[in-house]
């Protein structure tokens, strides 16, 4: 994987909210540079500002200071976003949901259908093109959401605890599929998760964040060989990293949730 260009440049970004009893610091000044094609996992307890960071990068929220520079050449939609819940439109079929970003960008139906069908195949939902969200399982809905986030081909994919609502077995499968998708598309991915195992298994680098106030505690390089699979989970280095991440989260300031 060639990792040269700076895809996301975050410099001193912070965020404070005004609440009833004064201001709350959601995120203390944070700086990091993320390269193109890099897979970053962000772990931390609730309230550590990891979701806030994603919302700031996506432009859903405005930071209170600092700069975020995306190397996406002025695209209208630089990032794809996968929420914790699938957030599908319940009146649209799988195909229509995946096609939705294209339909609303006036892409021709023919091309939109082609792209959407490719993505549906890629996330393993072939045969469910005309199913409504309520007819799909939780894992299938989340796959649909992933396909939708990729449909207008963003260079950056932001994922906010995307697999926390699905069962563990499905989660393992989805993790492997995510790796496969990442390898075949070369996207830059930022994945927020509660699971240190998931973070160690997937990422090139793991950002550890602590809560109240939310801040970046440290960043770990993950040197485990690619491609990763079941044997990775037997690697002592993997277990060492998982244990290290757990310790990082347990030390004061890193309250468990």
């Amino acid at each position: 994987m060639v990792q040269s260009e700076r895809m996301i440049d975050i410099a001193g970004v912070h965020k404070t909210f005004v609440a009833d009893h004064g201001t709350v610091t959601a995120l203390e000044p944070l700086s990091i540079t993320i390269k193109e094609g890099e897979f970053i996992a962000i772990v931390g307890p609730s309230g550590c500002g990891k979701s806030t960071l994603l919302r700031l990068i996506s432009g859903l929220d405005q930071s209170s200071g600092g700069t975020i520079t995306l190397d996406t050449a002025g695209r209208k939609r630089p990032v794809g976003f996968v929420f914790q819940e699938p957030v599908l439109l319940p009146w649209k079929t799988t195909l229509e949901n995946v096609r939705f970003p294209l339909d609303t960008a006036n892409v021709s139906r023919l091309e939109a259908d082609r792209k959407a069908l490719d993505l549906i195949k890629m996330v393993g939902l072939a045969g469910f093109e005309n199913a409504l969200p309520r007819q799909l399982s939780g894992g299938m809905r989340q796959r649909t959401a992933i396909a939708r986030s990729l449909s207008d081909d963003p260079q950056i994919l932001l994922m906010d605890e995307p697999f926390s609502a699905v069962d563990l077995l499905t989660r393992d499968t989805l993790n492997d599929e995510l790796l496969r998708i990442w390898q075949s598309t070369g996207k830059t991915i930022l994945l927020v998760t509660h699971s240190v195992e998931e973070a160690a298994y997937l990422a090139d680098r793991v950002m550890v964040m602590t809560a109240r106030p939310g801040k970046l505690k440290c960043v770990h390089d993950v040197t485990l060989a690619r491609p990763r699979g079941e044997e990775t989970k037997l690697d002592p280095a993997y277990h060492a990293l998982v244990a290290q991440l757990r310790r990082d989260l347990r030390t004061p300031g890193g309250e468990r949730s």
Partner: protein
Amino acid sequence: MVKRLIAWIDYSLALVALLVAWWFATGPMAMPTYLLPSPLRTWNALAGIAVTGELWLHLGFTLQNIILGLVLGSVAGIALAYVMTRFQKLAVWLDGPLVILQTAPKIALAPLFVVWFGFGVLSKVILIFSLVFFPVFIGACAGFRALDPKMKDLAKLLGLGNLQRFRQIELPAAMPEIFVGLKIGAVQALVGAVLAEWMSGKLGLGYLMTYAGATYKTPLLFAAVLLTTFLGQLMHVALSILENRLLYWKGVKK
């Protein structure tokens, strides 16, 4: 399929039973016609005005007013609800006046509408409008307010324009609640239409009733009453079809 067939048979049997009871009361029990006309006499009265074309004139007028009132009332109810959820300030200002208007019995305003808007179509449509508006408005408010905030995030991420967001996300998401209001509004619309025709004008099923009542043409009165029942059924079926088309995704099919 079999279930539907059984439902139809049940429905038909109930109607037949009702018809037999009606016939029994007028035939063997010999109820006088001015109290309860026989099914045959009622049918003849109906056929009589159908042949002269009078029936279609009255039915058409009532139906037209109901449709106009329903469409305009729904559009206005949805529009105001949407504007109010988008602009919270407006909601604060309008809340008081709206509660007063909403709780005012619209039927009691009917004579006022006649004074203000005349004996013609306008006063009737306005009465129906006022009856349809509030249930749809309240339903739409609930629907727009219940929108998942994540949907707003989605719209923002995709950079949707106001119109796109309304048509693609907000309106369809609020449709179940809007429909609850619309169904109540439709029943009210029929009541309003008949009532408005009782009070003024020389057209419509409501007028036909007052005319038949005043001239002791009980069979004709019965025919008119049955027609309004039929009209109510028709609207119910039409709305159910529309609901199944628009809300199939909820899996509401009964």
